[in-house]
């Protein structure tokens, strides 16, 4: 897949995910109408209408300000702000980060993204935003402290490729919607307990609406319970293969695959979980912030549920590139 195909596929995926989200909410709303309000007399599909409205609105909000939500949730701070108050040694690191980002922006022919630092000692990095013109790149404090210039360049190049091929758009919308689904599921669960009485009455009205109704009810309940899980699975699905791809195109930008390979080795050996980054945005990161064992192997279940490919495989692939390049 070349760059344009990747971009087109990511645009398509973003639309699909947003549509699926709205459709999913609509089904939940439909269920609310059927089981809580009943279809008898003066039927107004409040649930469906509200669900459609809420779904479209939250999809739009996720698209346009998902990046801000993600950055806020990690308490990342703009590098310029930190630089103004930093000591001498620290300022050197922050300046180096900005220089490296500038270099990679030039190499990739992209506008410079906004740069953030996450106050966390575990080395990790992620990019977010809806495209090259609206992109942010964040690294943890631990990454700045552990990596040297070449390694940092490798990591920044990896993130820059995510920005360039619009991976960030898909991953940001997923992160924002995972958050939204988690909220909704919480709310729906509480609603069910609270609305238990009216549901019984609704059923009496219809006089045992038949097997189809029960079937739908079961599906609806399962959907509510499983929503966060499904959102999670989606987040993992979107990120596994593209990490290999971003590694390769990142190495193309720096023309130095060994830099990124060494960076990944260092990131892996510092296996402490990145606490500042929560479950919902784990798939955005260069390395799994949760340090899950699932990510260490390749296999059916891992391919299904792990958010990141095994680190050893990524490092081996980069090293192979390095040797081919005669380095």
């Amino acid at each position, binding site marked *: 897949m070349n760059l344009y195909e990747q971009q087109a596929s990511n645009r398509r995926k973003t639309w699909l995910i947003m549509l699926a989200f709205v459709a999913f909410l609509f089904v939940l709303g439909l269920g609310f109408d059927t089981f809580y309000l009943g279809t008898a007399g003066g039927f107004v599909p409040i649930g469906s209408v509200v669900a459609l409205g809420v779904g479209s609105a939250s999809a739009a909000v996720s698209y346009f300000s998902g990046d801000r939500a993600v950055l806020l949730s990690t308490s990342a701070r703009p590098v310029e702000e930190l630089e103004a108050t930093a000591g*001498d040694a620290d300022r*050197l690191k922050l*300046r*180096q980060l900005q*220089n490296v980002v500038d*270099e990679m922006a*030039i190499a990739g022919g992209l506008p410079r993204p906004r740069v953030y630092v996450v106050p966390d000692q575990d080395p990790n990095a992620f990019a977010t935003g809806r495209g090259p013109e609206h992109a942010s790149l964040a690294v943890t404090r631990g990454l700045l402290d552990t990596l*040297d*210039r070449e390694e940092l360049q490798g990591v920044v190049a990896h993130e820059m490729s995510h920005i360039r091929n619009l991976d960030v758009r898909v991953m940001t919308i997923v992160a924002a919607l995972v958050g939204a689904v988690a909220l909704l599921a919480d709310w729906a669960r509480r609603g069910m307990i609270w609305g238990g009485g009216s549901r019984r009455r609704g059923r009496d009205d219809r006089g045992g609406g038949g097997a189809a109704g029960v079937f739908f009810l079961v599906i609806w309940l399962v959907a509510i319970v499983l929503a966060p899980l499904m959102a999670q699975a989606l987040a993992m699905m979107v990120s596994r293969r593209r990490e290999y791809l971003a590694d390769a195109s990142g190495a193309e930008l720096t023309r130095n695959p060994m830099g990124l390979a060494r960076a990944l080795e260092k990131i892996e050996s510092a296996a402490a979980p990145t606490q500042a980054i929560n479950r919902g945005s784990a798939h955005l990161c260069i390395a799994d912030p949760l340090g899950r064992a699932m990510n260490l192997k390749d296999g059916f279940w891992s391919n299904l549920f792990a958010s990141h490919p095994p680190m050893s495989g990524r490092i081996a692939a980069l090293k192979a590139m390095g040797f081919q390049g005669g380095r």
Partner: protein
Amino acid sequence: MALLILVAVVVVLALWAVGSYNRLVGMRNQVLNGWRQIDVQLKRRHDLIPNLVNAVRGSMDFERDTLTAVMEARAKALTATGPADAAQKEGQLTQVLGRLFALAENYPTLKSNDNVKMLQEELSGTENKVGFARQFYNDLVTKFNTAQQVFPTNLFANMFGFKPAELFEVTDDKDREVPAVDLTRR
């Protein structure tokens, strides 16, 4: 009828000429813009060097030759005319700068000096930026030059005063020699 055909041919030719003229102008501006990206970084580099020399002078006083060589190479680079000339002179500046950094490694006071470290970071930053911008610029130049040289645009390009742009590249073999200093910074 013959007249009509003649008019049609002339109109088509004129349209084609206007089209290729505009395309060439667009490409020329892209090339200029690409060069500006490099030029900005080169200027920044020239501004940084006196600061670096001043910062290390106290500790490296008896390395006067190297310091003078750096300042001389910088002065020469300032007089560069056009990308090809700049590429050659900047290449020499890079070499002597590399020698200076290699020597500075022998001075513990310099190695731990935050000011020097910052200048070194800024200089390697500009050097990398020039390197990455060069690829982009040279691609633009190659496209622009090819567009001028292919038939039949070449008949027009000369008439309209388009000239091939220079690559930002060292063409002389002597300047390509790899300097015998280790630039890797750890």
